């Protein structure tokens, strides 16, 4: 296996609001190899999107990265100035969001938006820009790319728009892509098409990808490794086989168990009792303890990482046996 080229170590991203400090991301660490898809799965408020935004250097007031390191090929990203980070984005790391209508400018033709993405970073001729646009549009399976270059975003379907966004992310040949719920808003048949093309691009170009989602089903079919987050903290990380095949954390088990396809039709779903705690009033212990049937007194203490195998780590005092 190749060495990781991207590392996040002990990341803390907090928001300092009038109501108090919201610790959205607490002590997150992971790495990524070329050609690998790391899935980050969690529910609303788990901190998965804030993790993605932190990597992109897009945390705005009142939030900030309080501590931790993010490095790509040995370069520390948290130390970059705003201008340096702007140069870095797109060229080295690109991001794809859930809603392509918010990413694309409604008043610009696809051609102009894609050209702009290139000319912001490189000095190349229109001919070259054109060829590169056609190349990436075809790579994501867009039929008749010439026509699409002339189109406005509203003239395309949702699936087509998201493909244009992904193609634009590929334009500058980045080392990694962070995708935040990229196929959540799409119909299943369209989702399957897009995932097919993305997986191919990752394999062919040796890209690293962080795929942020709440959808375990898609991840189980796409990701190489999965990280489970809850209320800003890591619960479990391992290969897809580890997490889906032998989940050891009570939260991972509960989450998998509440998916309809894992229940008998017509019977009540195995639901997780209670609600996620407020991020304003977290203790130092396991945030899932209040909803966990295995919790004991010790779960109120800070939870250290336990290594279960070379690939599988867990943050829990009472993990399930295999």
């Amino acid at each position, binding site marked *: 296996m190749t060495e990781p080229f991207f590392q996040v170590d002990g990341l803390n991203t907090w928001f300092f609001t009038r109501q108090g400090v919201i610790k959205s991301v607490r002590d997150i660490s992971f790495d990524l190899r070329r050609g690998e898809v790391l899935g980050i799965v969690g529910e*609303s408020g788990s901190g998965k999107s804030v993790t993605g935004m932190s990597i992109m250097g897009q945390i705005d007031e009142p939030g900030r990265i309080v501590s931790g390191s993010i490095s790509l090929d040995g370069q520390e990203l948290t130390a970059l100035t705003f201008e340096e980070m702007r140069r870095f984005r797109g060229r080295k790391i690109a991001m794809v969001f859930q809603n392509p209508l918010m990413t694309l400018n409604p008043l610009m033709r696809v051609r102009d938006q894609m050209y702009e993405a290139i000319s912001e970073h490189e000095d190349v001729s229109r001919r070259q820009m054109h060829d590169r646009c056609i190349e990436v549009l075809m790579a994501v399976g867009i039929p008749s790319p010439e026509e699409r270059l002339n189109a406005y975003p509203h003239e395309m379907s949702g699936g087509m728009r998201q493909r244009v966004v992904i193609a634009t992310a590929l334009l500058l040949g980045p080392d990694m892509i962070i995708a935040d719920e990229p196929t959540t808003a799409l*119909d*299943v048949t369209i989702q399957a098409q897009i995932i097919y093309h993305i997986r191919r691009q990752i394999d062919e170009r040796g890209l690293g990808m962080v795929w942020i989602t709440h959808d375990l089903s*898609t991840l*189980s079919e796409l990701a190489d490794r999965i990280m489970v987050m809850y209320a800003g903290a890591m619960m479990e990380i391992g290969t897809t086989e580890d997490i889906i095949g032998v989940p050891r954390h009570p939260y991972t088990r*509960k989450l998998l168990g509440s998916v309809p396809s*894992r229940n008998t039709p017509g019977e*009540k779903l195995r639901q997780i009792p209670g609600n996620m705690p407020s991020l304003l009033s977290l203790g130092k212990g396991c945030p899932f303890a209040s909803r966990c049937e295995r919790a004991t007194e010790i779960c109120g203490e800070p939870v250290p990482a336990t290594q279960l195998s070379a690939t599988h780590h867990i943050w829990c005092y009472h993990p399930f046996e295999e």
Partner: protein
Amino acid sequence: MNEMIFEAKDLSRSFTVGHRVFGDLANRFMGDRPPTVLRAVDNVSLTLREGETLGVVGESGCGKSTLARMIAGILPVSSGERHFRGEPYDSLLARKRDALKIQMVFQDPLSSLNPRLRVGEIVGEAAVLHGLVPRSRVKEYVIDILARVGLPADSLGRYPHQFSGGQRQRIGIARSLAVKPDMLICDEAVAALDVSVQAQIINLLMDIRRDSGLAMIFISHDLSVIRHLCDRVAVMYLGRVVELAETEQLFASPAHPYTRMLLDGMPKISLERRKFMPIKGEIPSPLSPPSGCHFHPRCPIATENCRRTRPELREIASGQVHACLNVEAI
């Protein structure tokens, strides 16, 4: 078998697209152009029995939400008949209190709950207005209903924005239950929720159904939710029903090629690395659906005939009803 509670025969709904005033002006000066008409729902017939749950599944633009609104009685039909317990909707809807027997739960509770009203008013308003409960006793009445949907009594004085997404959906369900409906239409009621919250709401709906024998029409794009909740399923594509079957039957042996494609595309939790195959084509625009069978441009078994002939629904040996001209040939 239970009595029929709802029956729809050849329901259709068209929308004229484009700006009214400018379209009319353009017609006046440039000669008559036929207006662009979108057939959102095209000759759909459905039945629902007491206590039954019927699922309607399909992708964007298939007309499932338009159908839901027509069944709920909040959208007029272009043609076709709707009957509730044998009575045509026209006379039913004229009697406001009886019309309450049909209720709807929407996808986005924030836009379907009045942000300026407290939960107590949102849930109790209709029941008081229609004389289901005297104003003097409405507080206890609402607290009782809130308890049924798993909300604490002190929710009464709070506003919708003070709740989480799952709790807001509970408020929406409580509002429907407060007028003692016999039929509940849920349009993507759990689509916007997290997995664990979604499980809680699905369980709540199942409890309500068990306790009150409510008949339900459950509209969703999510096949796994449909499979879990529904007795029968109708699959829609571009305004038409292409297959209708018992849930088990549909998932075990889908007849229509579109149903097969949907089932294949359904993400499953598994360790088998799926070969994501590029499925042919996009969903065509409902504004200009393909001729004949709407599905033919994406269909693996389409023939020349599918381009010309509109397939009618027909029953096959298993009791499934489908609209495919070639399916026996498989």
